Protein backbone atom coordinates (compact mmCIF):
# COMPACT_ATOMS: atom_id res chain seq x y z
CA UNK A 1 0.00 0.00 0.00
CA UNK A 2 2.81 2.41 0.88
CA UNK A 3 4.24 1.82 -2.59
CA UNK A 4 0.95 2.84 -4.16
CA UNK A 5 0.75 6.03 -2.09
CA UNK A 6 4.34 6.88 -2.98
CA UNK A 7 3.53 6.27 -6.65
CA UNK A 8 0.44 8.47 -6.41
CA UNK A 9 2.47 11.32 -4.89
CA UNK A 10 5.20 10.87 -7.52
CA UNK A 11 2.56 10.94 -10.26
CA UNK A 12 1.12 14.14 -8.81
CA UNK A 13 4.57 15.76 -8.72
CA UNK A 14 5.31 14.61 -12.25
CA UNK A 15 2.02 16.03 -13.52
CA UNK A 16 2.69 19.32 -11.74
CA UNK A 17 6.15 19.43 -13.27
CA UNK A 18 4.82 18.80 -16.77
CA UNK A 19 2.07 21.42 -16.52
CA UNK A 20 4.05 24.14 -14.69
CA UNK A 21 6.92 23.81 -17.17
CA UNK A 22 4.36 23.69 -20.02
CA UNK A 23 5.94 20.52 -21.34
CA UNK A 24 2.33 19.32 -21.61
CA UNK A 25 1.57 22.12 -24.06
CA UNK A 26 2.26 20.91 -27.63
CA UNK A 27 2.61 24.51 -28.87
CA UNK A 28 5.45 25.03 -26.42
CA UNK A 29 7.12 21.76 -27.44
CA UNK A 30 6.91 22.64 -31.13
CA UNK A 31 8.35 26.09 -30.40
CA UNK A 32 11.26 24.34 -28.70
CA UNK A 33 11.83 22.01 -31.64
CA UNK A 34 11.65 24.88 -34.14
CA UNK A 35 15.25 26.00 -33.87
CA UNK A 36 15.11 27.65 -37.30
CA UNK A 37 12.10 29.78 -36.38
CA UNK A 38 11.19 31.68 -33.25
CA UNK A 39 13.12 29.32 -31.02
CA UNK A 40 11.93 28.93 -27.43
CA UNK A 41 14.55 27.03 -25.50
CA UNK A 42 12.53 26.83 -22.26
CA UNK A 43 12.14 23.06 -22.51
CA UNK A 44 15.88 22.65 -22.61
CA UNK A 45 15.86 24.15 -19.12
CA UNK A 46 13.13 21.72 -18.05
CA UNK A 47 15.33 18.84 -19.06
CA UNK A 48 18.43 20.39 -17.56
CA UNK A 49 16.73 21.02 -14.24
CA UNK A 50 15.07 17.57 -14.11
CA UNK A 51 18.37 15.90 -14.98
CA UNK A 52 20.38 17.82 -12.42
CA UNK A 53 17.87 17.20 -9.63
CA UNK A 54 17.64 13.51 -10.41
CA UNK A 55 21.31 12.79 -10.94
CA UNK A 56 22.32 14.50 -7.69
CA UNK A 57 19.56 12.74 -5.72
CA UNK A 58 20.34 9.45 -7.42
CA UNK A 59 23.99 9.61 -6.43
CA UNK A 60 22.92 9.37 -2.79
CA UNK A 61 19.94 7.06 -3.30
CA UNK A 62 21.98 4.37 -5.07
CA UNK A 63 24.43 4.23 -2.18
CA UNK A 64 21.72 2.35 -0.35
CA UNK A 65 21.49 -1.42 -0.64
CA UNK A 66 17.81 -1.26 -1.51
CA UNK A 67 14.92 1.20 -1.79
CA UNK A 68 12.78 1.98 1.30
CA UNK A 69 9.73 -0.07 0.31
CA UNK A 70 11.20 -2.85 -1.82
CA UNK A 71 13.97 -5.42 -1.76
CA UNK A 72 15.85 -4.18 -4.83
CA UNK A 73 16.30 -1.36 -7.32
CA UNK A 74 14.71 -2.14 -10.67
CA UNK A 75 17.07 -0.35 -13.01
CA UNK A 76 17.28 -1.15 -16.70
CA UNK A 77 20.39 -3.14 -17.51
CA UNK A 78 23.20 -0.77 -18.28
CA UNK A 79 24.36 -2.24 -21.55
CA UNK A 80 26.51 -0.50 -24.07
CA UNK A 81 24.93 -2.33 -26.96
CA UNK A 82 23.25 -0.04 -29.45
CA UNK A 83 20.89 -2.11 -31.57
CA UNK A 84 19.15 -1.02 -34.75
CA UNK A 85 15.96 -1.45 -32.80
CA UNK A 86 16.89 1.28 -30.31
CA UNK A 87 17.75 3.76 -33.06
CA UNK A 88 14.74 2.89 -35.19
CA UNK A 89 12.42 3.22 -32.19
CA UNK A 90 13.89 6.61 -31.35
CA UNK A 91 13.48 7.72 -34.98
CA UNK A 92 9.78 6.73 -34.99
CA UNK A 93 9.28 8.45 -31.67
CA UNK A 94 11.13 11.58 -32.83
CA UNK A 95 9.07 11.87 -36.02
CA UNK A 96 5.83 11.42 -34.07
CA UNK A 97 6.89 13.92 -31.43
CA UNK A 98 8.00 16.47 -34.03
CA UNK A 99 4.73 16.17 -35.99
CA UNK A 100 2.37 17.23 -33.23
CA UNK A 101 4.34 17.86 -30.02
CA UNK A 102 2.99 15.24 -27.64
CA UNK A 103 5.09 12.63 -25.86
CA UNK A 104 3.39 9.96 -23.70
CA UNK A 105 3.57 11.90 -20.42
CA UNK A 106 2.51 15.22 -21.86
CA UNK A 107 -0.46 13.65 -23.64
CA UNK A 108 -1.75 12.15 -20.39
CA UNK A 109 -1.32 15.51 -18.66
CA UNK A 110 -3.11 17.31 -21.49
CA UNK A 111 -6.05 14.87 -21.36
CA UNK A 112 -7.50 16.92 -18.51
CA UNK A 113 -8.11 19.85 -20.85
CA UNK A 114 -11.07 17.81 -21.99
CA UNK A 115 -10.34 18.53 -25.62
CA UNK A 116 -10.58 16.07 -28.47
CA UNK A 117 -6.98 16.30 -29.63
CA UNK A 118 -5.03 14.86 -26.65
CA UNK A 119 -7.74 12.24 -26.27
CA UNK A 120 -7.36 11.06 -29.86
CA UNK A 121 -3.57 11.16 -29.50
CA UNK A 122 -3.73 8.98 -26.39
CA UNK A 123 -5.94 6.40 -28.13
CA UNK A 124 -3.53 6.33 -31.09
CA UNK A 125 -0.63 6.01 -28.64
CA UNK A 126 -2.31 2.95 -27.14
CA UNK A 127 -2.87 1.49 -30.61
CA UNK A 128 0.80 2.02 -31.47
CA UNK A 129 1.85 0.25 -28.29
CA UNK A 130 -0.53 -2.64 -28.97
CA UNK A 131 0.70 -2.96 -32.55
CA UNK A 132 4.18 -3.34 -31.14
CA UNK A 133 3.13 -6.13 -28.77
CA UNK A 134 1.36 -7.85 -31.62
CA UNK A 135 4.34 -7.77 -33.98
CA UNK A 136 7.08 -8.49 -31.51
CA UNK A 137 5.67 -10.93 -28.99
CA UNK A 138 4.63 -13.45 -31.60
CA UNK A 139 8.08 -13.92 -33.01
Amino acid at each position, binding site marked *: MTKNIVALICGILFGLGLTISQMSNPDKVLAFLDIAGNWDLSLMLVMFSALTTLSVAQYFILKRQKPVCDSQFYLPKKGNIIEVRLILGAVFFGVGW*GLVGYCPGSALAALSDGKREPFIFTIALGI*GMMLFSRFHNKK
Partner: protein
Amino acid sequence: MENFTPYSALIGGCLIGLSAALLLFFNGRVAGISGIIVDSFSAEIENRYWRAFFLIGLMFSAAIVNTFFPVVPVTYSRNILLVIVSGILVGYGTRLGNGCTSGHAVCGLARFSLRSAVATITFMSTAILTSYIMRHILEY
Protein backbone atom coordinates in the same frame (compact mmCIF):
# COMPACT_ATOMS: atom_id res chain seq x y z
CA MET B 1 12.56 34.45 -27.71
CA GLU B 2 9.64 36.46 -26.27
CA ASN B 3 8.00 33.22 -25.16
CA PHE B 4 10.99 32.16 -23.10
CA THR B 5 9.81 31.08 -19.63
CA PRO B 6 12.96 30.16 -17.70
CA TYR B 7 11.56 30.16 -14.17
CA SER B 8 8.54 27.94 -14.72
CA ALA B 9 10.77 25.67 -16.83
CA LEU B 10 13.34 25.31 -14.05
CA ILE B 11 10.72 24.79 -11.33
CA GLY B 12 8.74 22.30 -13.43
CA GLY B 13 11.88 20.37 -14.33
CA CYS B 14 12.89 20.26 -10.70
CA LEU B 15 9.51 18.72 -9.80
CA ILE B 16 9.91 16.10 -12.53
CA GLY B 17 13.38 15.24 -11.21
CA LEU B 18 12.08 15.12 -7.65
CA SER B 19 9.26 12.80 -8.67
CA ALA B 20 11.70 10.43 -10.38
CA ALA B 21 14.06 10.57 -7.37
CA LEU B 22 11.30 9.77 -4.84
CA LEU B 23 10.03 6.88 -6.96
CA LEU B 24 13.55 5.45 -7.04
CA PHE B 25 14.21 6.10 -3.34
CA PHE B 26 11.00 4.48 -2.04
CA ASN B 27 9.97 1.98 -4.71
CA GLY B 28 13.23 1.37 -6.54
CA ARG B 29 11.52 2.13 -9.85
CA VAL B 30 12.38 4.27 -12.85
CA ALA B 31 9.90 6.99 -13.84
CA GLY B 32 9.67 6.25 -17.55
CA ILE B 33 6.15 7.12 -18.58
CA SER B 34 5.82 4.97 -21.72
CA GLY B 35 7.04 1.94 -19.75
CA ILE B 36 4.67 2.68 -16.87
CA ILE B 37 1.74 2.95 -19.28
CA VAL B 38 2.50 -0.38 -20.97
CA ASP B 39 3.28 -2.26 -17.77
CA SER B 40 0.15 -0.95 -16.04
CA PHE B 41 -1.65 -3.26 -18.48
CA SER B 42 0.85 -6.04 -18.93
CA ALA B 43 2.89 -6.57 -15.74
CA GLU B 44 1.98 -9.20 -13.14
CA ILE B 45 -1.18 -8.08 -11.34
CA GLU B 46 0.54 -7.04 -8.09
CA ASN B 47 2.95 -4.84 -10.05
CA ARG B 48 0.21 -3.04 -11.93
CA TYR B 49 -1.22 -1.11 -8.96
CA TRP B 50 1.60 1.34 -8.30
CA ARG B 51 1.75 2.13 -11.99
CA ALA B 52 -1.97 2.84 -12.12
CA PHE B 53 -1.64 5.08 -9.05
CA PHE B 54 1.23 6.97 -10.65
CA LEU B 55 -0.73 7.59 -13.85
CA ILE B 56 -3.85 8.63 -11.93
CA GLY B 57 -1.75 11.10 -9.90
CA LEU B 58 -0.21 12.51 -13.07
CA MET B 59 -3.56 13.06 -14.77
CA PHE B 60 -5.20 14.35 -11.60
CA SER B 61 -2.62 17.00 -10.80
CA ALA B 62 -2.51 18.14 -14.41
CA ALA B 63 -6.29 18.46 -14.31
CA ILE B 64 -6.10 20.64 -11.18
CA VAL B 65 -3.48 22.94 -12.68
CA ASN B 66 -5.21 23.15 -16.04
CA THR B 67 -8.57 23.89 -14.45
CA PHE B 68 -7.63 26.38 -11.76
CA PHE B 69 -4.37 27.86 -12.95
CA PRO B 70 -4.36 27.60 -16.73
CA VAL B 71 -1.00 28.99 -17.75
CA VAL B 72 -1.40 29.47 -21.47
CA PRO B 73 -4.36 28.42 -23.59
CA VAL B 74 -3.39 25.73 -26.06
CA THR B 75 -4.42 25.85 -29.68
CA TYR B 76 -6.13 22.62 -30.61
CA SER B 77 -6.34 22.98 -34.33
CA ARG B 78 -4.07 20.30 -35.65
CA ASN B 79 -5.14 17.95 -38.41
CA ILE B 80 -6.74 14.94 -36.76
CA LEU B 81 -5.15 12.48 -39.17
CA LEU B 82 -1.76 13.93 -38.29
CA VAL B 83 -2.53 13.51 -34.58
CA ILE B 84 -3.43 9.85 -35.14
CA VAL B 85 -0.30 9.13 -37.19
CA SER B 86 1.81 10.89 -34.57
CA GLY B 87 0.22 8.92 -31.72
CA ILE B 88 0.82 5.58 -33.43
CA LEU B 89 4.44 6.50 -34.21
CA VAL B 90 5.07 7.61 -30.63
CA GLY B 91 3.41 4.50 -29.17
CA TYR B 92 5.20 2.07 -31.47
CA GLY B 93 8.52 3.94 -31.37
CA THR B 94 8.71 4.20 -27.59
CA ARG B 95 8.17 0.44 -27.29
CA LEU B 96 10.68 -0.41 -29.98
CA GLY B 97 13.24 2.01 -28.51
CA ASN B 98 12.42 1.13 -24.88
CA GLY B 99 11.54 4.59 -23.70
CA CYS B 100 10.39 8.14 -24.27
CA THR B 101 11.39 11.59 -23.08
CA SER B 102 11.15 10.70 -19.39
CA GLY B 103 12.75 7.27 -19.58
CA HIS B 104 15.66 8.11 -21.88
CA ALA B 105 16.19 11.88 -21.72
CA VAL B 106 15.67 12.23 -17.96
CA CYS B 107 16.12 8.93 -16.11
CA GLY B 108 18.52 7.33 -18.58
CA LEU B 109 20.76 10.37 -18.98
CA ALA B 110 20.81 10.84 -15.20
CA ARG B 111 22.36 7.35 -15.00
CA PHE B 112 24.81 8.23 -17.78
CA SER B 113 23.46 5.40 -19.89
CA LEU B 114 25.03 5.28 -23.33
CA ARG B 115 21.91 3.69 -24.81
CA SER B 116 19.76 6.51 -23.48
CA ALA B 117 22.20 9.12 -24.76
CA VAL B 118 22.05 7.61 -28.25
CA ALA B 119 18.26 7.37 -28.10
CA THR B 120 17.91 10.97 -26.85
CA ILE B 121 20.19 12.41 -29.54
CA THR B 122 18.33 10.38 -32.16
CA PHE B 123 14.80 11.37 -31.20
CA MET B 124 15.74 15.00 -30.55
CA SER B 125 17.35 15.37 -33.95
CA THR B 126 14.56 13.56 -35.82
CA ALA B 127 11.96 15.64 -33.97
CA ILE B 128 13.78 18.87 -34.86
CA LEU B 129 14.13 17.73 -38.47
CA THR B 130 10.45 16.73 -38.64
CA SER B 131 9.25 20.03 -37.24
CA TYR B 132 11.58 21.85 -39.64
CA ILE B 133 10.13 20.02 -42.63
CA MET B 134 6.58 20.59 -41.42
CA ARG B 135 7.00 24.27 -40.62
CA HIS B 136 9.49 25.60 -43.09
CA ILE B 137 9.30 23.31 -46.12
CA LEU B 138 5.69 22.13 -46.17
CA GLU B 139 4.66 25.32 -44.34
CA TYR B 140 1.98 23.44 -42.46
